[in-house]
């Protein structure tokens, strides 16, 4: 309905290879930009913006994990730990050196990338479920190390206070200010990922995923590119960790445990492997779902339970609904929310003449 390819002619290869080959896409992006940069912060309250901020942080992490899992076909159950590497790197830089965010964020990312590449070394020899176990081991080792080395964790509580970042001399105290700050990184992450996957490096990643033997025969050094995938993906994770630390105001290893790794895997699987839009859908979905189910239970739970039962039941019911909805969406469309969206779009593309 909104999406028409006919009548769009390209006269150069550059135009054909553009990020948005169709003019409608540019308008859609502009509309979204207005919605998220002008409308949302003006109309939503502080609490809702703080939820949006959580979504933004998750988008960065999900994009990174999708580069590894969706595009390169490797797996990592250690991304929570890579985030904590970023978080503690930044926290230590802030407390010891008073570093500003434009140092802590790249530094956190690079440190995570380094650790991630190390963890990726076994990927040369092992694949699939075996690699999953190797990265799981990394998750546990990193968690333990941070928790037990005071030089990293900053003492017995294993948590370090981190003040909000300062931009142009203004400390970002409100959620709306933080929202714009995070939005910048999300846009950077989205555009960067889109660029990466449409050029030489991204193609090599997909080649390794689809046919590693053929990838090698056309001259792709598989080991090097697998490590790159781990490093890039962990870089995103490290940045996510730093952003989350700024958001919380504290670096704490408990925020980056195994369940976080699994949440992020859930995001890329539910959203759609090997898709940027899917990463965004998945990140928003998995972040909002627990919050929405809680709202739902708080508002309508009395229909099914007595008030006293409800208080006990909410945490468990949330988990049940969370799991149930994930299963529901995966049964409806195993290829994820992105595919669901594409199906809808393709239906309207030829609407109303769908034959």
């Amino acid at each position: 309905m909104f999406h028409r390819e006919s009548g769009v002619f390209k006269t150069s290869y550059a135009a054909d290879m553009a990020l948005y080959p169709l003019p409608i896409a540019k308008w859609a992006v502009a509309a979204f930009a207005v919605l998220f940069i002008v409308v949302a912060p003006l109309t939503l309250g502080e609490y809702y913006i703080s939820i949006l901020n959580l979504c933004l942080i998750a988008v960065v992490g999900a994009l990174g994990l999708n580069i590894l899992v969706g595009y390169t076909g490797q797996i990592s159950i250690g991304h929570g730990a890579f985030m904590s590497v970023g978080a503690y790197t930044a926290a230590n830089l802030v407390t010891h050196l008073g570093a500003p965010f434009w140092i802590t964020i790249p530094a956190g990312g690079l440190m995570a990338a380094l650790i991630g590449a190390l963890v990726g070394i076994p990927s040369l020899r092992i694949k699939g479920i075996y690699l999953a176990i190797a990265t799981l081991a990394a998750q546990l080792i990193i968690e333990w190390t941070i928790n037990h080395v005071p030089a990293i964790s900053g003492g017995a509580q294993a948590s370090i206070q981190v003040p909000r970042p300062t931009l142009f001399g203004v400390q970002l105290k409100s959620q709306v200010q933080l929202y714009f700050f995070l939005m910048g990184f999300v846009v950077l992450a989205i555009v960067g990922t889109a660029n990466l996957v449409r050029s030489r490096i991204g193609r090599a990643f997909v080649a390794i995923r689809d046919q590693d033997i053929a990838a090698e025969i056309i001259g792709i050094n598989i080991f090097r590119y697998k490590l790159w995938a781990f490093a890039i993906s962990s870089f995103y994770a490290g940045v996510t960790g730093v952003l989350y630390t700024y958001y919380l105001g504290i670096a704490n290893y408990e925020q980056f445990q195994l369940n976080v790794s699994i949440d992020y895997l859930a995001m890329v699987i539910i959203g759609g492997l090997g898709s940027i839009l899917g990463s965004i859908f998945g990140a928003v979905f998995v972040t909002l779902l627990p919050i929405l189910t809680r709202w739902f239970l708080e508002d309508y739970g009395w229909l099914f339970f007595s008030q006293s039962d409800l208080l006990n039941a909410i945490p468990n019911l949330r988990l049940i609904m969370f799991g149930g909805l994930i299963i529901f969406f995966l049964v409806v469309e195993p290829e994820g929310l992105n595919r669901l969206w594409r199906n809808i779009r393709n239906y309207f593309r030829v609407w109303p003449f769908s034959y």
Partner: protein
Amino acid sequence: MAPQPITPAADASNEILLAATGVSKRFGGVRAVEDVSIAVRRGEIASIIGPNGAGKTSLLNMISGFYRPDSGSITIEGVDTTRFRPAQIAALGIARTFQNIALFGGMTVLDNIMLGRHVRMKSGVLSSFIYWGLAQKEEVAHRERVEELIDFLELQDLRKQPTSALAYGLRKRVELARALALDPKLLLLDEPMGGMNQEEKEDMARYVIDVNEQWGTTIILIEHDMAVVMDISDRVAVLDRGRKIAEGTPAEVQRNPAVIRAYLGAGGEGRGQAA
């Protein structure tokens, strides 16, 4: 980037491009290839034939770096490549196709062929991330070469199709395009016409000859269809049970009693397949 003109065959006549000397490969107790020596001259179409299990694909796998020979050596343009990894061999300008097609199913035809140019491109992680500027310039330049190949192999209408959706014969053609995208000096074709009907075979044979004539690409061809092999090859080597039993021009090989025996059994006459 314009097609890189490769020295025509006539200029470098008789220069050896690839030499395998006494290579052997054993898998457990099976002697897949035993003491085989072949030399391929620049600009020629050399075919390797032989019954099933003769060791043809094993030999090709050693040339392209998948297997390491147990003994013997392989040199390409005087460089000893015996211990090279496949990616290093590709960087020398050696491309190949597979007997049972190994395309990247999740990608479009265009991306598959663009991947063939991987070793000819340079963009690193950072410039890919930024894209505008260096990486874009490179992508567009290489797209031009890829479009030439798309025209050459008549794949224009399939550019944006995922390769997993293509018919068998077309996938073979896309695989050839991907191999050619490397601008190879040596092209290894493992049964490019396997499973094709007569018409598709003729098309493929035409492409192989065109590649050889237009760009002077040296080709090593494994093929079971004797009519095609005898028509388009400059020279033929015959393997049987891991050993080379004959070598020469198509006419010489067809008359060779050892070859006739290998194909038709003892006492057979030179009719039937080897027509």
